[in-house]
């Protein structure tokens, strides 16, 4: 293991500890919880199952990122101070109560209309929302990396997670048992969510542009530097603006018919933009110079 030369220089330095495994967890964990949440709204147990599977896959990647994955259970020890520890509880609650919630829809176990069913549904909804936002709280209290130090991150992650969850649902819709999904309604919802993402991301950039030195450097990397093409072209244009414009133009009319191939392309573009957004957020995390 060789030390990097910039370890010995005074200046703005990039974080290098969290890489593609953490980024993929941020994406899959959020998308899985978002998909589960929308499945409850649509009362579609199979979509809920898919959401739980996506979350579990993301969590496995997160475990692989640990230096000592066999000690993962110790991460439950500090929920009163650590958001990572709280996240472990949120994920566990969501998987357990989510499985109980969807079980009747899959033909198992118990009658969902009982009082117990209402409690299970309430807990699984709360856990899903918390899984969607807690990663924002993992980043936002960091005094070390000013670009992450923003109260907007939990909100941004919530909206992006919902957007990605619905996109996965659109892509999976031909393969899901049960009643066919109303793709027009889903795509219309995506218009609002994509618009919210766009406004939130631009607001975050605006706030950060007058923040600390490292945050301004992060903005420069995202707009004019190394990651400019990926951020402006991938996250903003391909991931949000193009799907937003196409969706608005084609589906806004009340009698519009959703063409599956069309919604698939839009969903793929948005998912690409979402993953790229989370990738870039982690990549442009920079520490302030010590002097």
């Amino acid at each position: 293991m060789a030390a990097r030369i910039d370890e010995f220089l005074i200046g703005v330095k990039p974080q290098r500890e969290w890489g593609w495994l953490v980024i993929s967890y941020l994406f899959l964990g959020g998308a899985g919880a978002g998909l589960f949440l929308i499945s409850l709204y649509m009362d579609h147990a199979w979509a809920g199952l898919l959401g739980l599977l996506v979350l579990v896959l993301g969590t496995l990647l997160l475990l692989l990122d640990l230096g000592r994955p066999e000690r993962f259970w110790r991460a439950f020890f500090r929920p009163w101070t650590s958001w990572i520890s709280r996240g472990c509880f949120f994920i566990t609650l969501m998987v357990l109560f989510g499985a109980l919630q969807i079980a009747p829809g899959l033909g198992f176990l118990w009658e969902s209309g009982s009082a117990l069913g209402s409690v299970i549904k309430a807990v699984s909804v709360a856990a899903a929302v918390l899984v969607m936002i807690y990663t924002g709280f993992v980043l936002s209290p960091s005094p070390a990396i000013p670009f992450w130090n923003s109260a907007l991150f939990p909100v941004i992650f919530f909206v992006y997670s919902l957007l990605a969850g619905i996109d996965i649902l659109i892509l999976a819709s031909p393969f899901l048992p049960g009643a066919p999904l109303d793709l027009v309604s889903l795509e219309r919802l995506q218009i609002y969510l994509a618009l919210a993402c766009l406004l939130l991301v631009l607001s975050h950039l605006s706030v950060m542009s007058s923040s600390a030195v490292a945050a301004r450097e992060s903005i420069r990397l995202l707009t004019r530097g190394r990651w400019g093409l990926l951020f402006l072209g991938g996250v903003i244009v391909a991931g949000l603006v193009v799907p937003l414009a196409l969706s608005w133009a084609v589906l806004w009319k009340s009698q519009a018919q959703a063409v599956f191939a069309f919604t698939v392309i839009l969903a793929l573009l948005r998912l690409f933009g979402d993953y790229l957004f989370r990738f870039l957020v982690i990549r442009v995390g920079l520490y302030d110079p010590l002097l």
Partner: protein
Amino acid sequence: MARYGMVIDLNTCIGCNACTMACKAEHATPKGIFWAKVLEKEVGKFPAARRIFLPVLCNHCKNPICQEVCPTGATYKREDGIVLIDYDMCIGCRSCMEACPYGPRAFYESDGAYYPGERTAYEKSQQDFSEGVVMKCNFCVERVDQGLDPACVVTCVTECRVFGDLDDPQSEVARLVADKKARPLLPEKGLEPSVFYVGS
């Protein structure tokens, strides 16, 4: 109770890295990992250009954010203010490294042995950590507990480091801090470091 701290005189430091090597020798840290190091930067323009040096180590903050974000409780603070890691509890999530603005922590991933495939007898005797954990400066707690100064302090050839009890008004570190001659790095982060600097 004492609160241990350190004051480093930047006007006296010559960037020789004796502290860096004393730390490696004391703790037998793996290849590529430095608990103490000397950062440098070139300032000014020719013909007035010069290098400035900044010796850094864990700041053993009064409000350690690393302890707050640690999900396992592996990072903890002793009553004397020294922040330590219980390597048997660390899961290697590196959240502490992301949260600390001072960059003193290192992740011991693998391939850290100077002689691949084996550890020397000295490494075996000094290392209480294993692969897959985060590690950092411990203020030479094994020396401090014996009433000795940390290795970086006693080895400094220009005597630019002073170690002592910040809560003891008679100590040199406390006087330097009280006289406002010493300042911490990035005070705006609110972590109240126990390592201070004088000079520029």
